[in-house]
């Protein structure tokens, strides 16, 4: 298929520039293949994160021509032959080197979320938990998440406003949704969702959903339902009055 033009970011947190490469591209290649070819033929120490190369692990998140994407699932034939393809590291998190960013902040967020707390009363006589497919469909959608953090990267609350202390980001909003909507879970995280995890910081501009490689409806199915659960608890005077008069429903 001939020589194609590439620009890759080379550098670390102190300094770095976009470097030009020309590389032979074969049929069926994805951007990650080209990066590997550059790595093995031209610059052996080019840093890039990857694992499964099939869109299942979420390691190779980068920005290709400015768009947050998985390098392993971006085919070269998405771009015209003349186009120069630029690859940069994800911008929202501190750079380590070249195309690799330090995403450890995300792991800290997960640790702050109250873990799954099953209700033992929901076991049958044989010790099996009973859940219907209709009840787990919603939760399973969120659990498709491969933790590529593209949603965290594109979320303007984290990316532009750097509110990492006030908002856990879309990835963890759907983690929270998967717990809150879990038919067996009995922990209550609504107060934390409002006060600590920052559901109000999201202004539902949906870039997280746009970039999700697993096509999870992060905004519609995850964040908005959580916002509404927060409204139930904190902003709905009718529910408040009802609970005052008749007591909280179990």
């Amino acid at each position, binding site marked *: 298929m001939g020589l194609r033009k590439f620009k890759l970011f080379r550098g670390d947190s102190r300094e770095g520039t976009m470097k030009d490469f020309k590389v032979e591209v074969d049929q069926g290649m994805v951007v990650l293949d080209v990066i590997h070819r550059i790595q093995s033929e031209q610059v052996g120490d080019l840093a890039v994160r990857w694992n499964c190369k099939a869109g299942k692990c979420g390691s190779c998140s980068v920005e290709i021509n400015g768009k947050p994407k998985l390098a392993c699932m971006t085919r070269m034939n998405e771009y015209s032959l003349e186009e120069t393809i630029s690859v940069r590291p994800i911008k929202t998190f501190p750079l380590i080197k070249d195309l690799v960013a330090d995403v450890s902040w995300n792991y800290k967020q997960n640790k702050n979320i109250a873990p799954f707390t099953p209700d033992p009363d929901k076991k049958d006589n044989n010790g099996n938990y*009973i859940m*219907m497919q209709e*009840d787990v469909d919603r939760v399973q959608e969120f659990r498709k998440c491969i933790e590529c953090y593209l949603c965290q990267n*594109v979320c*303007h609350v984290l990316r532009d406003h750097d509110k990492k202390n006030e908002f856990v980001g879309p990835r963890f909003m759907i983690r929270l949704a998967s717990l809150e909507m879990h038919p067996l879970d009995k922990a209550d995280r609504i107060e934390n969702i409002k006060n600590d995890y*920052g559901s109000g910081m999201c202004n539902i*501009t949906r870039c997280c959903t*746009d970039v999700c490689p697993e096509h999870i409806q992060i905004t*519609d199915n995850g964040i908005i339902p959580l916002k509404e659960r927060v409204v139930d608890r904190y902003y*709905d005077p009718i529910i408040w009055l009802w609970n005052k008069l008749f007591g909280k429903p179990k």
Partner: protein
Amino acid sequence: MDSNSLFNTQRSDRWWFEPLWTGVGFLCFVIYTTWAMLQGDYYWWSAGVEGFGGYLSPFYSPLIFINPIVNGAAPIDHSWFGSWPEWWPNLIPASPAILILAGPLSFRMTCYYYRKFYYRSYFMSPPGCSVKGIRNKKYKGETALLIFQNLHRFTLYIAIGIIFILSYDAILSFFQGGEFGVGLGSIILTINPILLIGYTFGCHVFRHLSGGHKDCFTCPNGKPTFRYQVWKGVSWLNGRHMMWAWISMIWVAFTDIYVRMVASGYWIDMNTWNN
């Protein structure tokens, strides 16, 4: 270019296209609506025939007060509270639409879809994905000034009420002076509440209230509940909320245009009443 400046991005595609057309499109609607609202005339057509029935512009429904002397006004007996009150300040045009539009407008302005596009198109927060928006160190999302967005569910209740009113108007449109018939206007006025139903009942809040707030759809007996079926249906609509939002909005404006044009005599309504 400074990497912190507005619109800074490495994207090479036409990311600006969507915020631009939605921004301009909605602006057109707002301009037209404001103009139509201020007119206060040509919102009713029954071919001059008195009695039950006629075409009523959705912008002017319900008829709280009526000023019967303007052109294209509804007969006074259609008014809920009679003629326009004496105390109405002169500065504000005596148009019933001013009282009415606040309801649907509040529903749309707090709608989760509209919020997406106007935050993007008008507030540049952000203008596009991985495109630099307006720098704002004090960004608070919807926790401070915009906290009222949490009241969306109350605007839903208003919107549902308006659907009933507009459905009644659709029935009115099949009668001209009490005589049953069908006109192009009747069809347009009937489509209007149908589209609004698609939009209103696909609302995220309705999805939450109708079933989304439950963690279990099959409790207590392991069979999917009626609530679950409703939630599924609402979810289907909700998945197409943007489409419903746009077509229902355009159709409302078009319905007003249609009634206005027919009432002012520019367009001839095709109908079975032979006028």
